[in-house]
Structures are given as structure tokens and as C-alpha cells.
């Protein structure tokens, strides 16, 4: 793909504004609270959009469109079932404890509520995970830019060796993210996430419009595509009759409860955005404000997958400029087949059907419908979401590293200026470690899969710990720690004993024995989470009951029954969290009915 000067100019405008925002914020970043907590001075709508965008990395956008093509509109469950209820719960019930306690991070809340070892366990695993995610994001971006051949022409013009394209992408993204976080810390990251939100909407709304118009609207899609792809709940009574291979209980308990609440309510990456709000009321509104656009995002990110399945190539135009081999051209739609690099043959599944390269749904759609100009805008939106996905992880990392590891265990009493300096150093270190991760990912795909699995095990039980911590005053530190360890062990054990149908024993499961086969990897994931949660819950309760409880006076502000309820009566009705929650939940139910 060759870009015009206009496309490049649009990208440069974006980079100039990103760095400009960072530079402007530099003057306002004087204390560690400015750097790590954005001075707790941001209005709710800014935090809300950042809360939404922090999770909306480019992998999410590309991945959701890929799932849209694979599983259809049911992919929206990840938003309607797997996000909205949890975001509402966070805003209404959990935010008062995060914001109201003196905690500056999620691990720090665990120390206040439980003890040091619980905090340390969470802080270390979280810090490792953020660096890992940001590295993966960096790798994915470099890989995509390489695949789209965007930089081939400029490299040729400059006489540079095209084999350096991958390194250049990594270096440039690392330096830009480094610069704007060093300058402005969390404020910088949040501002750029808001910027990214506007860019995503600006880039994807016209894409969905053109695509839908071309395929004959929603009715055109329902005519062209199988009925299971255009109905959100068709076939979910039995795992055998829907493409995801899950049934309603697994979906409701695994995705809607354990995985979704576990992520949205305990992951410091998103919670940090709400904790930067300028008041308790604004902090509680943050996830609720985010829930409104979140509810509508399937139309921007899932729908492109369906459109790419149904759309036709341009008459007389090139079909899919991305694929090099004619074998990859699809029989229907725009998404090319996967071609094995070694043989040049199309990859086929167990039933002999060719496998599509679903991750290309968004890129092929951009190329199909966007002329020069809009193409630059669309690519800039993708680029922005890669960068802010990285930045979100890096800011969460430097906070947890500085407050929960360095200040906790290395130097507890130093000046504020020292911690600010440590935070900046942690940023440099975090980005360097992400770059290293990106190269490891490029070399050894398997290591990455294993690491991802380990993090999934560690995360799976967290929700039980937080729920018991916030809503049961009897829960103790020993209980929480024992619960976390057993939950992680239960997740690993369940994964080791089960396997999705069609997979080989190893990183997909079954590495201990094969006791059960799940119809899909997704079903296995949901059930791993359910077992981990249950084990953590049971062990935390059991151990808590036999260990000494904490003095209730120490738990004020940390536990629901011992804390005054936030008073919303004096707020205008449309600012009250309960009103916003009711509206967003009702609208979500309505969407499910419409797309039933």
C-alpha cells in the first residue's frame, strides 16, 4: 500500500499534537501526585473517555472485528454482557472504596484492607503483566505496519534497508510514548486516550457507514450471512449450536460475572483512570459515563467484521492489496485466507475448509472503502489506539512500581521529588522492558502464549478477593492470600486437566491429563475462571474464619458495612450514579432485545 503526502501529513499532525500535549503538561507536573494520579483533578467525562479508551487498544479493535467475522454479532456479548454490568457495579459499589480510602493504587487498597503479602502478590504480578501487554501491543503494531507495506515506499525513497522497518516502528513508538509520559505522566496518558477516542470515532464511523451502505444495510447483512452471525442470542441454549461453543450458564457466570467483573473492577489499568477524577462523585460517574459509548462500540468495532464478510471487491479494482498470493483470495467477502508461509498453500481446518485470516478484517475494509485522505485518517486512528494502549500500561506500571514496590520495600521514606524521579526512571525502564518483550514475541511465539496463560491464572481469582474484602468485614489477610494462591492453583489445574476439541495437549490445556473436552477454547476459558473464582472464594472464607479478624475501626472506609454511604441526594438527578446506571442498563437490555 502506498500512502500519499496527505495521508502522511495527517499522521504527522497526530504526532505533533500528542507530543505537544505532553510538552504543555510538563509545566504542571511537579509532584508525584501530579505524575501518578494526574493531581486527582480531572472532570468525570475526561476520565470516562480515558477509562473506555485505555481498554480500546488496537488489538482490541482488530480482534473485535476478527471475532465479529468469526462469531457474528454475538461478539457484542463482550460489551453488553461482559463489560456494561461490571462497569456499573464498579461505579455504584466499588469506587467509593478505591477513591475514598487513602489508596493510590489497587494493590495499595489490598494492603490497607488486608496485608503486605496480598499487596505484594498483586503488585508484582500486575507490574509484570503491564510490561508484557505493552510489549505485545508494540509487537502487534510493528507487525501490522510491516504487513501493510506502509513504510516500504518511504524506505525505498530514502535508500534504507527495508528489513529495518520492524525496528523503526518499535523505536518510534517507544520514543513517542516515552516522551509524552516522561513529560506529563498520567495526565498525558489520559489526555491522549481521550484524543484517541475522538480519532477512533472519526476514523471508523465513516468506514462503517460506507460499508453498510455498500452491503445494503443491516437487512443486506442478514440476507447475505448465516442467521447465527446476525443474532446475538441464537443458539446459546447449547454449546453445539453457536459458533462460540459456549452455553448460557458459562457465558453468564464465566464471562458476565467472573471474567468481566474481575477485569473492570480490579484491573488497575482502568481503575486508575477513575481514581484520577476530581471528586468522589466524578470518580463514581467515570465508569458510568464510559458505559454509554461502550454500549454502542460494537457498531464501530464488531460490525466491520460482518461487513468484511459480505462486502464485494471494487469493480475493476485490486481485490485485496495486502495478500501476495492469489490462493489467499476469498470466495466471498474481503477477508483473505491464511496462507502458510513455508508452502504457499492455503491453511485448512480439520474439516478441510480454508481458514480466513480474520485479523485482516479491519485493514482490508480500510483499503476497500477509503480513498487517499480518509485512509490516512483511518490508519492514524489505528496508530493512536496502539500508542495509547501502550501508554496506559506504562502509566499503570510506573505507579505500581513506585508506590507498591519501590516505596513499600526499597525506600519507604524519601522526598516526594525522589519518588517523582523514580517514577520517571520506571517509565524508561518499563518501556525498555516492553521493547525487549516485543522482540521476544517476535522470536518465540510459544513463550508469549505460556506467559499469557500464567497471567490469566493469576488474574482469574482476584474478583473473589475484592468482593470479600469490600463486602465482608470478617475476611482476613491470611484468608485473602491463601485464597489467591488456591484460586491461581485451581485455574492452572483446571487448564491442565481439560482441553478444547481439536487442540493438541500443551499450551491449550491438557498438560496434566485429559479429563474433559470443551467444545471451544472460549468455553474452557470461561470455566477456568469459574473454578478459580470458586476456589478463591471458598478458601478465603474458610481461612478467614479460623484466623483473627482485624479491628473494625481499622476497616472504616475500606469495607461496605463500616462505611457511610455516599450521599447523592443533593446532586442534580442526571448527575447521580444511580440514574446513569439505570439508563445505561435499560439501554443495554434494549440492544439485546433488538439484536436477539
Amino acid at each position, binding site marked *: 500500500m502506498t500512502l500519499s503526502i496527505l495521508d502522511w501529513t495527517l499522521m504527522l499532525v497526530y504526532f505533533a499534537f500528542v507530543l505537544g500535549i505532553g510538552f504543555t503538561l510538563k509545566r504542571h507536573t511537579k509532584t508525584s501526585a501530579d505524575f501518578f494520579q494526574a493531581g486527582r483533578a480531572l472532570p468525570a467525562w475526561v476520565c470516562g473517555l480515558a477509562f473506555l479508551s485505555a481498554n480500546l487498544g488496537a488489538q482490541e479493535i482488530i480482534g473485535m472485528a476478527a471475532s465479529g467475522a468469526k462469531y457474528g454479532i454475538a461478539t457484542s456479548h463482550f460489551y453488553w454482557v461482559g463489560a456494561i454490568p461490571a462497569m456499573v457495579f464498579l461505579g455504584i459499589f466499588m469506587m467509593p472504596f478505591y477513591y475514598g480510602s487513602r489508596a493510590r493504587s489497587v494493590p495499595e487498597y489490598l494492603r490497607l484492607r488486608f496485608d503486605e503479602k496480598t499487596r505484594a502478590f498483586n503488585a508484582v504480578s500486575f507490574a509484570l503483566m503491564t510490561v508484557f501487554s505493552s510489549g505485545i501491543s508494540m509487537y502487534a503494531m510493528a507487525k501490522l505496519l510491516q504487513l501493510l507495506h506502509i513504510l516500504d515506499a518511504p524506505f525505498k525513497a530514502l535508500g534504507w534497508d527495508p528489513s529495518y522497518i520492524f525496528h523503526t516502528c518499535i523505536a518510534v513508538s517507544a520514543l513517542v510514548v516515552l516522551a509524552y509520559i516522561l513529560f506529563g505522566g498520567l495526565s498525558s496518558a489520559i489526555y491522549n486516550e*481521550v484524543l484517541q477516542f475522538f480519532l477512533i470515532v472519526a476514523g471508523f464511523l465513516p468506514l462503517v457507514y460506507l460499508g453498510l451502505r455498500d452491503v445494503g444495510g443491516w437487512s443486506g447483512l442478514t440476507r447475505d450471512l448465516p442467521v447465527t452471525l446476525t443474532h446475538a442470542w441464537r443458539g446459546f441454549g447449547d454449546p453445539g449450536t453457536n459458533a462460540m461453543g459456549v452455553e448460557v450458564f458459562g457465558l453468564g457466570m464465566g464471562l458476565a460475572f467472573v471474567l468481566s467483573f474481575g477485569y473492570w473492577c480490579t484491573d488497575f489499568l482502568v481503575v486508575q483512570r477513575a481514581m484520577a477524577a476530581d471528586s468522589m462523585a466524578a470518580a463514581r460517574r467515570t465508569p458510568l459515563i464510559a458505559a454509554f459509548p461502550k454500549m454502542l462500540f460494537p457498531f464501530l468495532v464488531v460490525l466491520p467484521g460482518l461487513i468484511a464478510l459480505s462486502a464485494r471487491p471494487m469493480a475493476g479494482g485490486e481485490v485485496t492489496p495486502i495478500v501476495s498470493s492469489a490462493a489467499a483470495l476469498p470466495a466471498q467477502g474481503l477477508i483473505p485466507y491464511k496462507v502458510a508461509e513455508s508452502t504457499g498453500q492455503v491453511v485448512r481446518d480439520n474439516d478441510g475448509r480454508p481458514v480466513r485470516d480474520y485479523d485482516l478484517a479491519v485493514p482490508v475494509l480500510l483499503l476497500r472503502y477509503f480513498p487517499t485522505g480518509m485512509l490516512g485518517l483511518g490508519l492514524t486512528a489505528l496508530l493512536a489506539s496502539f500508542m495509547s494502549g501502550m501508554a496506559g500500561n506504562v502509566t499503570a506500571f510506573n505507579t505500581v512500581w513506585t508506590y507498591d514496590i519501590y516505596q513499600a520495600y526499597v525506600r519507604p521514606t524519601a522526598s516526594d521529588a525522589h519518588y517523582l524521579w523514580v517514577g520517571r526512571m520506571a517509565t524508561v525502564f518499563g518501556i525498555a522492558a516492553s521493547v525487549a518483550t516485543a522482540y521476544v514475541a517476535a522470536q518465540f511465539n510459544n513463550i508469549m502464549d505460556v506467559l499469557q496463560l500464567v497471567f490469566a491464572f493469576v488474574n482469574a481469582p482476584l474478583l473473589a478477593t475484592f468482593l470479600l474484602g469490600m463486602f465482608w468485614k470478617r475476611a482476613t489477610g491470611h484468608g485473602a492470600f491463601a485464597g489467591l494462591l488456591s484460586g491461581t492453583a485451581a485455574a492452572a489445574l483446571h487448564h491442565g486437566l481439560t482441553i478444547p476439541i481439536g487442540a493438541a495437549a500443551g499450551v491449550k490445556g491438557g498438560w496434566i491429563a485429559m479429563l474433559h473436552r470443551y467444545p471451544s477454547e472460549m468455553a474452557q476459558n470461561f470455566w477456568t475462571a469459574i473454578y478459580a473464582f470458586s476456589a478463591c472464594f471458598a478458601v478465603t472464607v474458610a481461612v478467614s474464619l479460623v484466623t483473627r479478624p482485624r479491628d473494625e475501626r481499622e476497616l472504616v472506609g475500606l469495607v461496605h458495612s463500616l462505611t457511610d454511604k455516599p450521599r447523592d441526594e443533593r446532586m442534580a438527578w442526571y448527575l447521580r450514579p444511580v440514574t446513569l446506571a439505570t439508563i445505561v442498563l435499560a439501554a443495554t437490555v434494549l440492544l439485546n432485545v433488538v439484536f436477539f
Partner: protein
Amino acid sequence: MPLDIRLPIGAMLGLMGLLLAGYGLLGDQAIYARSLGLNVNLIWGSVLVIAGAILLVLGSRRNRGGGATDRG
């Protein structure tokens, strides 16, 4: 808020919109066969200019007025 975020976002969208709309007006019209015959650069560029202008107005009004906060 140390810097009203609406100002840089408004400026960026406005600038991008101007570039797109300008190209849509002056550039080659044949490229729009791809976008179903619609001059998307001109149309969407104009939308972005308007959106950018609205953000700029909102951002600067609040800064000058100082009082009209959306804090709750």
C-alpha cells in the same frame, strides 16, 4: 484541569478536517469510485471542521468564564 483537553482535540480535528476537505475540493475526483461515489474527504472533512470548532468554542468558553464547571 491544567489544560482544557477540548482545545487541543478541537484544534487537531479542525486541522485534519481542513486538510481533508481541501483535498476533497481540489484533488482528483476519480478516487471516490472507491467510496461509492461519495466525496468522503470533503463531506467528512467538513464534519470534522464543525466538530473541531464546537470543541474549541466549548473549551475556550469554559476557560474564560472560569465558573461554568462540570464538576459534581
